[in-house]
């Protein structure tokens, strides 16, 4: 269990944190580097791959979207970064934060790392302790890891509640989680995440569990606060358009691998991988009528279900050729982005969405 790694004597937040907040200038090392991450988990007693050779970087202040369907490994990546993988997980590859290898952190250093990297989870109701008050939830990390005096922690929490749009913060802090709506609870979770002064936010589908109107509100708040505090963010979602809307770059994952990395503005009109194009096409366009919704034939595979010696998307891809089945494609750089399609260059321009 990962929690036992963080037992140590006295938390020295300053020392370790210093390494994590090294100069944020453009020439400095990226804040987060994931390098060749491969994760195997015991599934039904056998160790199966869920992530295969995942590499990505997040620079300070940058928002990167991580998009994929179920089983693509997007949540797993975030958990690997925060060292929250389930027991029995085998990890290959490196995760570096400001140059330091995350897997080597222990004790006070690990706790300091977790202070600087805040995770926002998908279902707020399951992720907040139901028997403790909101005030306790929000101030816990501050009091424990940063040694902030309780009264000061309360003041900061109240201030943050106002910033996420919850008025009457005093009353809310005294309430229990079941007395708040899902949307409010998620705002509380966002507020709590920001209270420890993180440098990186890992947002794991923060609005998926909410209803549509609340989604928009919470997304707006998250985006606004992120920019205001200049935080980096890894935003995980299955919604391609949402990621493109609030992130500078978008990474698309399929079957535990990265299949495309592209700047968000170019993603929709000029995708570099058939899967991305298919995802975008599958979303119905409100401005058009169509006889039949476009779906991708077949179902999304996880890393261990996908064929191991060919392109994972080949069985479902309309553009598949023999070259695609010859071996696992590598990532090719193209127009400032990356694509794991063997035919990326030749398919360029033909992959645009058309709603006919």
């Amino acid at each position, binding site marked *: *269990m990962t929690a036992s790694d963080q*037992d140590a004597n006295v938390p020295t937040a300053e020392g370790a944190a210093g390494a994590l907040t090294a100069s944020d200038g453009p020439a400095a090392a990226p804040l987060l580097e994931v390098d060749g991450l491969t994760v195997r988990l015991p599934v039904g007693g056998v160790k199966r791959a869920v992530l295969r050779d995942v590499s990505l970087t997040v620079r300070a202040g940058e928002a990167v979207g991580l998009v994929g369907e179920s089983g693509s490994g997007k949540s797993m990546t975030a958990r690997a970064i925060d060292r929250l993988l389930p027991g029995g997980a085998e990890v290959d590859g490196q995760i570096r934060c400001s140059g330091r290898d995350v897997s080597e952190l222990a004790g006070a250093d690990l706790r300091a790392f*977790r202070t600087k990297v805040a995770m926002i989870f998908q279902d707020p109701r399951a*992720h907040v302790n139901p*028997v403790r008050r909101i005030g306790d939830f929000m101030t816990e990390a501050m009091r*424990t890891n940063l040694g902030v005096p309780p009264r000061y922690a309360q003041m900061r929490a109240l201030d943050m509640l106002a910033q996420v749009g919850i008025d009457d913060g005093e009353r809310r802090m005294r309430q229990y989680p079941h007395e708040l709506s899902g949307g409010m609870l998620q705002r509380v979770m966002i507020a709590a995440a920001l209270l420890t002064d993180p440098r990186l936010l890992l947002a794991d589908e923060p609005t998926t569990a909410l209803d549509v109107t609340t989604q928009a509100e919470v997304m707006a708040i998250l985006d606004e606060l992120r920019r205001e505090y200049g935080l980096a963010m890894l935003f995980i979602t299955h919604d391609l358009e949402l990621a493109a809307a609030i992130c500078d770059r978008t990474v698309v994952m399929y079957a535990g691998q990265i299949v495309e990395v592209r700047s968000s503005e170019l993603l929709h009109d000029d995708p570099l991988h058939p899967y991305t194009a298919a995802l975008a096409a599958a979303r119905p366009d409100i401005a058009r009528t169509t006889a039949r919704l476009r779906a991708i034939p077949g179902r999304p595979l996880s890393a261990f279900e996908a064929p191991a010696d060919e392109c994972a998307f080949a069985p479902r891809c309309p553009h598949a050729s023999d070259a695609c089945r010859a071996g696992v494609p590598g990532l090719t750089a193209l127009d400032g982005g990356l694509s794991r399609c063997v035919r990326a260059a030749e398919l360029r321009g033909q992959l645009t969405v058309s709603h006919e």
Partner: protein
Amino acid sequence: MLLASLLIASFVIFGALYLAPGNPISALSGGRALPASAMHVLEQRYHLNQPFLTQYWYWLDNALHGNLGLSITLQENVSSVIGARIWTTAGLVLYAALIILVIGIGSGIFAALRPGLADTSVLVSTAVSAAVPSFVAAIVLVLVFSVKLGWFPALGNGAGFWSSVQHFTLPAVALAFSSIAIVSRVTRAAVREESDREHVQTAISRGIPSRLLVRRHILRNAAIPIATVSGITIASLIAVAAVVETAFSLNGLGAYLVQAAESKDLAVVQGISLVLVAAFVLINALVDVLYAVLDPRVSLGSRAQ
């Protein structure tokens, strides 16, 4: 709800008099022949000439005022008989409750937090101890600790505090023995389940050290089912105490209840039953309150769900 339980229970206890074969007088006297004057006294005292519900009312009213009738066999007031023996039973139950809580909860937490050999051994031992009835545990304990090792006395109450503690130890262990199993199991299951919950992941992701994690998030949450089961288990000790008291010749309420049942001294049986059921209902009510206190999502009285 608890008042209703108590009321209905008292009704059943009282009504038992009428279920007995024969007429109420023979039931009260335990089938003995009585001189006419004694029968007359009984009729007066128990209002046997009045309708059933009126009698019930008189009985209940008397009971609430501490008058539970007369014991045929001992020729004493039932209330004073109860008063003399209640501390024995209470002491025994409390002692056993302490053992159950400390060992049961302790072993459950231990097994949950240290998987592997510790876990398996706790599981196996609870599986065995759950099957050992208190009177079997009683004879084994007496055999080992009293006869062979001579550490504890085998029978009787003892006089004075330390002597009483000595005398009550084996009985308390026998009483607690099979109940430890379920408390331990539920504790283990609850702690394990809480450890896997998502809100614990949140706390880990914020860097909360594991000592605090276990205390504030795992144990605090697991306390809800643990407290509920412990409470119910302790409440059930009240009935089983009778068996242990008989086995160890302790002069508690339970032992006397059994003797009265054998000699058909109905007034005593009714009186003691009422007291025991009241205690049982009271403890259950306390568990309800405890549950509402521990779990802010729950309002009083909804534990039944």
